């Protein structure tokens, strides 16, 4: 079942128009080249559109919509390869909404709705997609003071974040710690190199950083946050598939070989149809997952729907990126060809929160 809300429809139109205008491919390349941690003007435009507050409850200055309603925004951003702190901030807001105390929500959600940047720090150097591999931990001194020690990686936009939500072990159980950027020691945040050059990814190294009790979130939901991340990344991938397909079709319809447009060769045409089918299926799984996310209460059903969507998207987007390079021939081997931008995005997305093989393993247990 796929249900499409009016809110989604509205956001779909706005977001498409916005992203097409703000992020043509030349702009994507300019941003990569510039290497800035944030395009503040663009960010302010997104804040003004109200996108930061979409999922934040009305009580805290947001629109109070479901996370699933933001799917069209991320899809539109994905198709134009527009990477902004919206992903990290939306996920961090989910952590607060799901797990935060009233005081924590009161303190942060209105700021986020107003444009402050937040992010989450989950993954560690081992690259595990399972939270049971987390080693970052809180240590309680005799005096009752706590300190946080550990290293996180793939922390998006940490360089410009006002607040970071960090997963850590406390007495053997996972919890979320909220750290204000001002409390993070100099040098703890380092930009890291990821294959998708549109992303601003950082490592976060914490050594005995003091943590007050009010920095620890009372809720300990982790899987729901991971699933939220998968849902939004899948939305980006669905858009990305659309984007890379357009690049491929454009080339097949203009480039000639042996005096024929290369799109007339079945060796190009048929795999491109396969990519189209992958894109259509991905989009269907995406909006199915969004529907289930909003309407279902059974966590296992939600998990299955999201993992199916992430699995489908990961597989097809990676393959489309790979074929995109190949079908451009010699030009495909150059940095100038846009297919590489999409392949790199596909690989980043594939390996965040579980690749297709990982998802199939999880689904094997969930479905049967």
């Amino acid at each position, binding site marked *: *079942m*796929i249900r*499409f809300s009016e809110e*989604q*429809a509205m956001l*779909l139109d706005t977001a498409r128009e916005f992203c097409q205008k703000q992020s043509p491919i030349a702009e994507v390349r300019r941003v990569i080249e510039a290497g800035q941690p944030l395009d503040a003007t663009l960010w302010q435009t997104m804040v003004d559109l109200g996108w930061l507050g979409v999922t934040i409850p009305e009580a805290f200055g947001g629109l109070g919509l479901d996370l699933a309603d933001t799917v069209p925004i991320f899809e539109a951003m994905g198709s134009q390869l527009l990477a902004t702190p919206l992903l990290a901030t939306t996920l961090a807001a989910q952590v607060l909404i799901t797990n935060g105390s009233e005081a924590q929500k009161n303190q942060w959600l209105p700021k986020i709705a107003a444009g402050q940047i937040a992010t989450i720090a989950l993954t560690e150097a081992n690259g595990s997609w399972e939270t049971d591999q987390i080693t970052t931990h809180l240590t309680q001194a005799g005096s009752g003071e706590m300190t946080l020690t550990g290293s996180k990686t793939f922390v998006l936009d940490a360089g410009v974040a006002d607040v970071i939500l960090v997963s850590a072990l406390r007495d053997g159980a996972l919890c979320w710690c909220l750290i204000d950027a001002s409390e993070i020691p100099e040098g703890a945040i380092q930009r890291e190199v990821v294959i998708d050059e549109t992303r601003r990814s950082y490592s976060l190294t914490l050594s005995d950083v003091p943590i007050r009790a009010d920095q620890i979130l009372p809720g300990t939901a982790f899987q729901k946050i991971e699933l939220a991340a998968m849902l939004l990344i899948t939305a980006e991938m669905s858009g990305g598939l*659309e984007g890379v*397909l*357009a690049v491929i*079709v454009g080339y*097949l*319809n203009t480039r000639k070989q042996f005096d*024929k*447009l290369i*799109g*007339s*060769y*079945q060796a190009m*045409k*048929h795999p*491109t*149809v*396969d990519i*189209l*089918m992958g*894109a*259509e*299926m991905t*989009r*269907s*799984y995406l*909006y*199915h997952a969004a529907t289930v996310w909003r309407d279902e209460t059974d966590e296992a059903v939600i998990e299955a729907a999201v993992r*199916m969507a992430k*699995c*489908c998207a990961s597989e097809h987007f990676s393959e489309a990126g790979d074929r995109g390079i190949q079908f451009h021939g010699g030009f495909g081997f150059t940095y100038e060809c846009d297919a590489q931008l999409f392949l790199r995005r596909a690989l980043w997305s594939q390996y965040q929160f579980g690749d297709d093989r990982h998802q*199939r*393993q999880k*689904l*094997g247990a969930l*479905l*049967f």
Partner: protein
Amino acid sequence: MNENEINEFRSDVRAWLNENKPATPSFLLPETFMEVGTDQQFEFLRRWQQTVYEAGYLGMSWPEAYGGGGQPQVMQDIVNQEMAAQRVPFVPNTIGLNWAGPLILDMGSEADKQRYVKNILSAEDIWCQGFSEPDHGSDLGNAQVRAVKDGDEYVINGSKIWTSLGSYAKYMILIARTSNEGPNKYAGLSFFLAPMTAPGIEPTPIKKLTGEFGFCQTYFTDARIPADCMLGNEGEGWSVAMKTLMYERGAVGGQAGGLSMMDLNINDIIELARRATRNGQPAIDDPLTRDELVKLVLEAKGNALMGSRARVPALGGTYPTAVAMSGKLRSSELKRKMTRFAVSLQGANGARYISDDALDGGKWQRSYLNSFSGTIGGGTTQIQKNILGERVLGLPKS
């Protein structure tokens, strides 16, 4: 009907089906009307259709005057749902119930309606279809079978292929060329309700790769059929044929109802994977087999979701026709993969064929071989991909 009436009716149907559903026969039943290969199979299925019709559960929304039930369509829908749920056999007169019948009710003369409709429902008259021709692919416009008017008859010459139930049919819906002139290749076609009993019409069974029969090649040698067998006017055959595509199940004046095939769905494959054993354990417990199954589930559910998404116009995306135009490609390839996988669940018993020793009587091996009718018939997978590439993505012709 109010909700109470609906519920009551549904439970009546359920009870009736429970009571009257035929026992599984000693032989392996076909899974679609295209696969009916023996008299035994045919008689079993015809009898079942008769039973269903006599109980009032077929053609429920067709006019009473012609043998229908004159009831609201919703009742037929309920019957169809219950039949699918209980996995009863299909009703074999598919061409009659879903193509010829709706067409005759729509544009036939009163005489046509009186003559044909009731017997379609009761399976008294079996109908077949004469559209495809050997060597002329799936495009109707290439049809070469000639119909030449001679007095009050048409003289038919040529041959049609893939005529399902050809040996049992009393009538054929036939596309033939009455002219080679006209603005395009479709303009010279006419549509006939042809009696298969006319001398010079010879349906010759084709043995399929499964080793069974189930299709005919139908030869026409100076076969004379009455001129009033024509439906519509001369030269309108193409548009009449296109009309048949509009009679979706459930539309008013639409198809008669009943199941037209034993639907294979991914849940059957999951169930089989639990039941079949590889090396002494349920196939589903083997990690690699399980992963193949997950992949198939993803493809099957993804296909189903595509249809669901396509009904939300805002989610149509760049290529809004992609989903509708790829349905045949996706479902036929999925069926081939599912049935091929089903065979692989059985360990050494995958090597068996139709027999009592085989799992489910060898149904899966046969289904796999039959699955090529989907990936080949009506435009092969390769042609479907050309069409999608050209008409949906706008790529140049191959």
